[in-house]
């Protein structure tokens, strides 16, 4: 695209105009998309009393920070936040490791039994949680192991979702790259660690994000397993602040709690989403 021509041909301009137009439309759509969240923020900063009369305003009604302050100071919010960070962080870390390893094996290693084990793992995706969590609950109860971080993490670390995602993405990596490393004399582990994992950064980012969010927002299991106040996660902890018929009486507080619980996740996503899209420069060369 030479800029030296005095009269750049219309065809050269068109793609850029199209691009800008497209982005603008997309941004408008995004603005509509984000409206409910803006509304949530607005309600979080409105006083409960004002909200009992009217709720359809996009800007805070009777603006106040008291809801937010009450949430942060309320209950054991810092402790609950810490619990969530620890449990979610470690669950995500271990899930990524376990799923990546298993994904590599299922995608690339022709070992005996694979054809039986892989479907078995996938079948785990299809089990309704509500049904199997009583036996799981009783397992931990008999070992007297509730109200621990381990109880919150262990059932979640072996995630069929993770294996499924990693298998699909690792299978998509061109064989030549992996073979090159193996032919160089690298062991499976080294191939995995030095070649497959780095190539799977987008997939691992995706899985990491999902695992983090799903674990963070998990409600039913922490509800029954972590019954002592100090062991609540931020999700169950904030739910415990809620009185009866809270929507009618303390809508602002409810929204403020929602903001506090979801803001860390949003920030996390914004930081990591770059990893989902590789730059053009890496794309063509690395393949």
């Amino acid at each position: 695209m030479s800029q030296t021509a005095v009269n750049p041909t219309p065809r050269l301009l068109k793609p850029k105009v199209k691009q800008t137009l497209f982005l603008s439309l997309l941004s408008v759509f995004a603005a509509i998309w984000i409206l409910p969240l803006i509304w949530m923020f607005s309600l979080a900063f409105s006083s409960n009393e004002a909200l009992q009369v009217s709720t359809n305003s996009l800007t805070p009604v009777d603006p106040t920070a008291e809801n937010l302050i009450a949430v942060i100071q309320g209950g054991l919010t810092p402790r609950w936040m810490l619990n969530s960070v620890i449990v979610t962080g470690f669950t995500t870390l271990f899930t990524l490791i376990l799923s990546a390893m298993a994904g590599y094996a299922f995608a690339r290693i022709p070992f005996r039994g694979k054809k039986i084990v892989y479907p078995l793992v996938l079948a785990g995706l299809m089990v309704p949680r509500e049904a199997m969590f009583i036996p799981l609950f009783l397992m931990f109860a008999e070992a007297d192991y509730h109200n621990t971080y381990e109880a919150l993490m262990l059932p979640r670390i072996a995630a069929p979702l993770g294996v499924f995602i990693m298998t699909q993405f690792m299978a998509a990596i061109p064989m030549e790259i992996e073979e090159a490393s193996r032919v160089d004399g690298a062991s499976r582990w080294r191939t995995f660690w030095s070649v497959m994992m780095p190539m799977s950064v987008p997939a691992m980012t995706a899985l990491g994000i999902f695992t983090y969010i799903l674990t963070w927002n998990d409600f039913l299991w922490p509800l029954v397993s972590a019954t002592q106040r100090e062991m609540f996660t931020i999700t169950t902890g904030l739910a415990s602040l809620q009185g009866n018929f809270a929507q009618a009486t303390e809508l602002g507080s409810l929204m403020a709690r929602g903001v506090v619980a979801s803001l860390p996740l949003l920030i996390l996503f914004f930081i990591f989403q770059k990893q989902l899209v590789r730059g053009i420069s890496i794309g063509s060369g690395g393949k």
Partner: protein
Amino acid sequence: MSQKTIFSERRPEVPTAGNRFAKSVKKDLAGWGFIGPFMLIYLVFLVWPILQAIGLGFFKIDLLVITDRTFIGLQNYFRMFWGENMEWTLGNMWEWRIAGLLLLIPVFRGWRSKTLSTLESVVYSVSLVVIFAGVMGLAPGEGGRWNDSLFWLSFGNTVLFVLLSTPVIVGMGLLLAMALNRPGRWTGVLRTVFFAPYVLSVSVLTLIWAFLLNPQLGLIGTFLEFIGLEPISFLTSPTLAMPAIVIATLWWTVGFNVVLYLAGLQDIDKSLYEAAEIDGASFWQRFRDVTWPGLRRTTLLVMVLQIIASFQIFGQVFIMTRGGPNGATRVSIQHIYESAFRDFNLGYASAMSVFLFLVMIVFSVLQFRFSRDET
């Protein structure tokens, strides 16, 4: 990593029987070694409870006093599926049955074009006929009733939700991913915007949407009034409640598909795009010849996950409509949850979960089967 030279330096290997055996054992060790940690935890914390749950389906067992259990064999299943005074009629649910039998057409075409083996075609055809022509004709006759009317009702609603939500959420995910698949600060912001709803917990989501959809208190109602229409009460309308929940679910979860598709788009060889552009291909041609085939694996992943997630929908519906109005939005998991935790009937809930589980397996197997043929 210069591939060509590495290839040509490949060490020659003499294959012997011993070599081959050693290699296969090595592969097995490697394979099991890699899946070992995962499998260990998986077997203990997922498979074992699931097996127990399946076992519970053969018992009458009380949630509050779990030692109080009696073996009742298949009675839970009998209760789920059957009723009193059952009779077979040609006209029962005939619209659905005709629609189901229309599936015989693609099966036939698959057989003709040799994508399906004769055995498979026969299996599918027979199954379709048995289910749609046969089984679906059963219903309670005069003076009869289903043992559990809520069971089939909630299953039907679940299937409806799956059919409505899957194309919408998968399609939207793909479109958005393609739109957002470019580097840049602003696109990063846009990506965050479209994904943001996914970070909300289900309780916050339902709070926001219950208020949004409220004709009196919500933004949508205000907007409708603004453009001169009557505000609609979505969640109390038997026809609009389910679509409203689909939209809310779309808003909430499309980000998941967007992220998967974005990751998938990265794996498509960019040189293919360059080649297509040189050839002067249009956008649609590029999509059809490069993007769509390249996303084959991702699409399989996304669709399987979406269908599984849709079958297991619960939270949004339970909190926003509690299954109403008039049971129009009651889904299977709600029925399972209420049976276990409100009626304390753990055995029955387990049996229903097994059924749902098997249905999902069938759908997934079919998806895997049909995606492999798209080479």
